[in-house]
C-alpha cells in the first residue's frame, strides 16, 4: 500500500520555495527598446491610415463630382495622397531599389519584370513579375507583406532570430537563415527553402511557431497559417555540403527500337502532385475515423499531424499520426491509404499534413 500523508506539508513547502524563487534575468534594455519601437510603428501606421482615409474620402468625393472616377488595369501604380508618406515603387523602376529609403507602408509593384530591393546588411528580396508587396515593418524584424505573386528573399545571417519575415494573409514565414521563396497561389502559400532555416506559422503570434523548414524543404500552407503540408528533403540533400551523396540506383528501362529515350525522373514529386495524393489519403483517414468512432450524442473531433515516407517508386510507407489515432482508425486508414500511388521520383519524399477529423 502506498505511503500516504505528508502531502499538505509538501505542498506548503514547495509553495514557499516557489514563492521565494526569483524571476529570471530579463534584458530590460531590449524589452524597452522593442516596446517603444512597436508603439511608434503602431502610432505611425494608425495615423497614416486615418489621414489616408480622410484624404482618400475627400479625393473620391472630388473625383465623383468631376465625373472622373473610373476603373483601370490592376495593378496600377497609385499616386500616394498628399501628406501621406507611403509611396509606390514600380513597375518600371531601373536597377536595385535601396531598402533603406523605404518606409513602412511603401509598396512595390511589378508588371513584366522583377524588382529587387536591397536592405544593406539585412536582406535582399526580389519581387517576381506581376506581383505586389508592401513593407510592413522596418524594426528588429524586417517584414515584407506579399499581396500578390511571389518573392525570393536572401537574408544576411544575424544574431537575432527572425530578423526578416514575409507575411501573406495571416501566415508569416520568418527567417532563421537565408534563402527562401514564398508564393501566394490562390488561398494557399507555397514556401521553398534553398538555404538555411525558416519558421512558418500564424502571423498573429509575436514569435513564429508552427513548422520549421530547412534547406530543400517545401511546404504548402493555408493563409491563416494553421494548416499545412510539408515535403521534407531527404537527409542527403541537407548534408550535401559536408558528406557524400549516394547516387540513386539507376532505373531499369527497356529501350524499344526507334523509341525516344525516357525523360529523367524528377528528384522528388512536385508539391502539387503530393497535395493531390495527400487529399486522397486524408479522405481515407477521415472516413476511417467516422466509421470507427462511436460517439452517440457526443461530437468527437480530432486534430493530428499525419506523416509518411513516399518511396522512389511512388508507394506510400507506413502512416504515422501525432497525436496517435485509435488503433482501429489507424489500421483502417493505413489499409485504405496503401493503394494510393504517388508519382515516381529519384529520391521520394517525406510528407506531413495536419488534418482535422470529425464533423
Amino acid at each position, binding site marked *: 500500500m502506498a505511503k500516504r500523508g505528508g*502531502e*499538505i506539508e509538501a505542498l506548503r513547502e514547495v509553495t514557499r520555495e516557489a514563492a521565494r524563487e526569483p524571476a529570471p534575468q530579463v534584458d530590460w534594455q531590449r524589452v524597452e527598446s522593442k516596446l517603444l519601437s512597436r508603439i511608434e510603428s503602431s502610432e505611425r501606421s494608425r495615423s497614416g491610415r486615418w489621414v489616408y482615409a480622410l484624404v482618400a474620402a475627400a479625393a473620391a468625393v472630388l473625383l465623383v463630382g468631376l465625373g472622373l472616377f473610373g476603373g483601370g488595369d490592376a495593378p496600377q501604380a497609385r499616386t500616394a495622397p498628399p501628406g501621406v508618406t507611403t509611396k509606390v515603387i514600380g513597375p518600371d523602376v531601373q536597377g536595385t531599389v535601396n531598402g533603406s529609403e523605404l518606409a513602412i507602408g511603401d509598396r512595390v509593384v511589378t508588371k513584366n519584370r522583377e524588382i529587387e530591393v536591397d536592405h544593406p546588411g539585412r536582406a535582399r528580396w526580389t519581387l517576381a513579375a506581376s506581383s505586389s508587396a508592401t513593407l510592413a515593418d522596418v524594426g528588429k524584424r524586417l517584414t515584407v507583406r506579399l499581396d500578390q505573386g511571389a518573392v525570393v528573399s536572401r537574408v544576411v545571417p544575424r544574431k537575432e532570430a527572425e530578423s526578416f519575415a514575409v507575411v501573406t494573409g495571416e501566415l508569416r514565414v520568418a527567417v532563421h537563415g537565408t534563402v527562401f521563396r514564398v508564393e501566394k497561389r490562390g488561398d494557399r502559400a507555397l514556401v521553398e527553402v534553398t538555404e538555411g532555416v525558416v519558421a512558418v506559422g500564424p502571423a498573429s*503570434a509575436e514569435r513564429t511557431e508552427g513548422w520549421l523548414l530547412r534547406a530543400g524543404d517545401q511546404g504548402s500552407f493555408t493563409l491563416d497559417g494553421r494548416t499545412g503540408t510539408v515535403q521534407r528533403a531527404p537527409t542527403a540533400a541537407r548534408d550535401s555540403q559536408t558528406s557524400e551523396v549516394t547516387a540513386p540506383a539507376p532505373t531499369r528501362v527497356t529501350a524499344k527500337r526507334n523509341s525516344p529515350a525516357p525523360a529523367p525522373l524528377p528528384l522528388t514529386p512536385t508539391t502539387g502532385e503530393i497535395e493531390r495524393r495527400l487529399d486522397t489519403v486524408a479522405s481515407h483517414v477521415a472516413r476511417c475515423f467516422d466509421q470507427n468512432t462511436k460517439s452517440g450524442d457526443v461530437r468527437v473531433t480530432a486534430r493530428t499531424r499525419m506523416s509518411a515516407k513516399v518511396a522512389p517508386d511512388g508507394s506510400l510507407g507506413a502512416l504515422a499520426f501525432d497525436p496517435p489515432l485509435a488503433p482501429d482508425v489507424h489500421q483502417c486508414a493505413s489499409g485504405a491509404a496503401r493503394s494510393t500511388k504517388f508519382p515516381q521520383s529519384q529520391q521520394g519524399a517525406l510528407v506531413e499534413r495536419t488534418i482535422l477529423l470529425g464533423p
Partner: protein
Amino acid sequence: MPAAVLQLDRPSWPGAAADPSCHPVRPATNIVAVSDGSESQPASEADQLVARCQSGEAVAFRELFRAHRADVARLVHRMLGPTSDLEDVIQEVFLQVHKSIKDFRGQSRFSTWLYRVTVNVVLMHRRAQRSRPTFVEQPESLVPSDVAPLPDEQVARRARIVAFNRLLDRLTEKKRTVFVLHELEGMPPVEIAKIVEAPVLTVRTRLFYARRELAELLREEPALAALADELGPSGDRDSDRAVEREARREPS
C-alpha cells in the same frame, strides 16, 4: 476565441502629438485618486505618474514601465513557469497598458488594474499557444549548457519547483490564477476578486479546489512524493480529512 477584455485601438485625432507614448485623452488636471470608493484622497506620486501618462507625456510611460516592469515580470513568470516567451509577454502587457491606460478611472489601485491586464494577457497567450500548430522540429532546450553544476540541495529544490510548475499547469486557468495570486503573490482574496472580476466567494472556492487538487496530484511527481515522505504524515491519521482541512484553510 477569448472574450475581448481590452478596448480595441482607436485612431488618434488630428492635432495629437506624433508621440510614441500614450493617447492624449484629457488635459492634465488635479486628478483626485479614489480608493475603493471611499473618501477622496490627494493624488499620490504614483497616481500623478498615471495621470501624466494619460495626458500624453512620452517620458511618463517610460517611467511607468520602469517602475512596474519587475512586478509584471515576476507575475508572468509565476503564471507561465519557465518559458522563452517571457520577454514577449512582458512586452505585450505593457503594449496593452499603453493602449488602455486612458480607460483607467482610478476606481481601484493602479497596481490592481495592472495585474488584471497582466493576467488577461497571460491567459490569452496560453490560449494562443494551445491553438498553434506544433513545431515539426523540437526547439532548442532552454537549459543553458554552460552553467556550473549546482549543489545537491539546490538541484533537488529545482526539481521540486519544476514538478510543482507541472502540477500547476494541470489546474484549470481559473484555479491556477487564483492560486498563483494568493499563494505565490500573497494577495488577499478581496484584491484577487477585483483582478479576476469575480465575487470574493468564488475566489475562495477556486482556491479551495486548487489546493485540494494539488495535494491529490502531488504524489504523481516523484520529487514531490519524496518531499511528502520526508516531511511525514500530518498528525491526523486520515490523510483525506487532512487534505480537506488544508483546502479549507482560511485565506489570509
